[in-house]
């Protein structure tokens, strides 16, 4: 078997006031894979339900990215992630890890439905295990109560959905403006769109205040912009909170 696309997601690694976030731990894992095994894709941050009945620390979000692995390297990466998350996560946290080959997912729609449910309903660990088993995904509680498996599975599901989440990190180009066509040539974004969905004019220039931040739409890294006196201006963070 050659290399195939693998989803990797983690959740619930911190506690109140902890110095390292789930996003940062996920970034470390991504860098390790990038350096030793495979090219990776950007991490997406998926917002899950905010509800007092869920024991999240501060924002109940899950992180996911993809890479290309074969069976042997999948096992190596899995073992690395489990030990790294156990080591880097907060003492009282309840981390969970989800991983799996895209080609093994039996019912993509059912998996996506689980992810969308995690944004609307309080889910149980039992339903997470059932869904993961049905979709042939690896799902593991790392320590304590292991509630992070619910969010980790939802992270994979929402990444597979392809229309959820913000791209982790901010991109600094070191210039005040750039043509849409030039930005696309950098490969940092796959598309530039106006906030209501229309594809941006490739000849237009984008005025950059400080940095650029993408969202995940139609399985692509997308920069959302708005009209700004003959130019485009990236949407500010406050306008990206629904992603």
């Amino acid at each position: 078997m050659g290399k195939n696309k693998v989803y990797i997601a983690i959740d619930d690694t911190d506690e109140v006031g902890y110095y390292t976030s789930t996003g940062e731990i996920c970034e470390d894992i991504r860098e390790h894979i990038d350096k030793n095994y495979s090219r990776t894709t950007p991490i997406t941050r998926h917002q899950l339900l905010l509800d007092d009945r869920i024991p999240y620390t501060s924002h109940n979000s899950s992180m996911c990215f993809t890479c290309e692995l074969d069976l042997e390297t999948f096992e190596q990466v899995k073992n690395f992630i489990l030990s790294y998350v156990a080591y880097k996560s907060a003492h009282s946290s309840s981390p969970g890890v989800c991983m799996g080959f895209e080609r093994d997912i039996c019912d993509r729609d059912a998996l996506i439905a689980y992810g969308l449910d995690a944004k609307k309903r309080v889910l149980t660990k039992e339903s997470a295990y059932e869904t993961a088993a049905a979709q042939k995904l690896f799902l593991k509680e790392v320590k304590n109560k292991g509630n992070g498996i619910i969010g980790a599975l939802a992270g994979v599901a929402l990444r597979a959905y392809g229309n959820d989440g913000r791209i982790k990190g901010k991109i600094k180009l070191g210039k005040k403006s750039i043509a849409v066509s030039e930005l696309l040539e950098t490969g940092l974004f796959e598309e530039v769109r106006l906030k209501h969905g229309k594809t941006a004019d490739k000849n237009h220039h984008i005025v950059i205040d400080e940095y650029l931040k993408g969202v995940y739409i139609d399985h692509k890294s997308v920069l959302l912009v708005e009209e700004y006196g003959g130019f485009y201006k990236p949407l500010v963070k406050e306008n990206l909170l629904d992603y």
Partner: protein
Amino acid sequence: MFYKRDNSFVFKYGKKNYDKAIEAVGLCKNFVLDKDEDELITSTKKNSCYNCLFRRWCSESFICMKKGMYES
């Protein structure tokens, strides 16, 4: 700026009152900027409770976990 609900201190002004969240942090000695840039939700460089490491988002607003520690 906060009301008490089941021993938690909930910000009165919801999730999108950016001015009030900046005003509230001015009254607080416990503010710590969340180190994860991706969790900072305002583009302003001014300190805001919305960007504090000790806020816990809930359905309608956020809960200040520091107030919960010291004022319950």
